[in-house]
């Protein structure tokens, strides 16, 4: 079974670059302020979500294992 993830975006840092939305298309979406929201943390594979987090130009994305709390990114 796929790992359950907790994914969130720090809105103090997010500049709405939308690179995450273009990589993990089912996980991230821009809200009305044009900042990213992780609206479906199970939408993409872990690999794709980590790729999106890595490509955030302001390191605003955080990924954890929802069950163990293990930090997966950064």
């Amino acid at each position, binding site marked *: 079974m796929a790992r359950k993830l907790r994914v969130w975006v720090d809105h*103090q840092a997010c*500049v709405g*670059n939308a690179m995450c939305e273009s990589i993990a298309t089912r996980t991230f979406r821009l809200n009305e302020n*044009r900042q990213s929201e992780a609206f479906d943390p199970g939408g993409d594979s872990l690999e794709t979500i980590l790729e999106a987090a890595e*490509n*955030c*130009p302001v*390191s605003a994305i955080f990924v954890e294992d929802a069950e163990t709390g293990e930090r997966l990114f950064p």
Partner: protein
Amino acid sequence: MTATHIQDDMFTPDVIADPYTYYGRIRDEDPVHWNEKYAMWAVTRYDDLTWLTRHHELFSSAVFKNDPRPPYPDINESDLGLYEYIKNYQADQFIQHDRPEHLEMRRVLHGFFTPRSMEAWRPFVRAAVKDLLDAAEEKGEMDVMRDLATPLPVLVIAEMMGVPPAERQYIRHLAEKLLYIGRGEYDRMKPLAEGMRGMVDYVSPLVDERIVNPGDDFISVLANGEKKGIFTRHEVLVNTSLLLLAGHETTINLICNGALSFLRHQDQWELLKQDPAGLAKPATEECLRYDSPVKSIQRIAAQDVEMRGKVLRKDDRIRWFISSANRDPVAFPDPEKFDITRHPNQHVAFGSGVHHCLGATLARVEGQEVFKALAERFPRLQAEAADLEYQPSITFRSLKSLPVTWH
């Protein structure tokens, strides 16, 4: 409130010397201001700037492609042919594209510039700063612009591009011509076109070579974009030149303007010296906010848009001013205060939205390493000259020189 008394020449000596008073007044009195002289909108408030940059579908970045008008300020009529060449050159820059092309082009380059990959360059940057400061110490004097702010970013971007060290001087020579893009002189088209042709001629054989023998350098990344059919050859050449320029000009200003901010705020300099390693990061953010390297960026309206009761018509020219947004009291308490512990500090020195500066992390790493090293090595740093001059640019906040002593 009426704003008929705002004078619209943005190149006068007092506006160039102190953009904050002039653009601050527009921000307070007429935040979305129609500049009669240049027939363009000046957008000056922080909230409007973030809204505008995040609504890229309303405000096109394809300024050169979409604007049939001659440039502003005016140029010599005999140079209109040169302007056509310059327009075609500029239009091929990836930053001059809108989605979906912009995303496709940016994705070719983006992986090279992620925070993690840029962090890997920190030891190189640190060593380069050390070498430059060793040389200055030996000489016993330093012009921060000539001896530190200029050579450091050129050295770093040249290394990333895989350009031979001996050619850095030539790159800088071409870059200085390209800086006329933000200037107001009637005859500025000639040096600009020379710079552009010179860059294309210079990078052309490098690209030829990297197409055949790719490495892990930046030109190879662009050349790979051509192989994938995303870039044309002209786009590879123009974007290599763009990154050579953008990769250093802005950082030069961060270093020089930041150093000056410390020289003029001794209390903050004392504070940095107490913990250079710990404060280098927030200090760099405050330098970026307080005296931002880039003053303004252009857009062109993609459709009719209303902002603060004004109607911006499709194809209207727009310029958004980082210099005023970063001093907006609505976004920053006590905005005129240089405070290296400021938190939060969500400045817009790198813009915002899908066009947020690709090289932001690199600029940050360079700024952090410079301010940390200066505080550690030159605790008695002082400005030597009282009168400092800036380049007459509407785009860049660039000092001409910054001589210092430390004895």
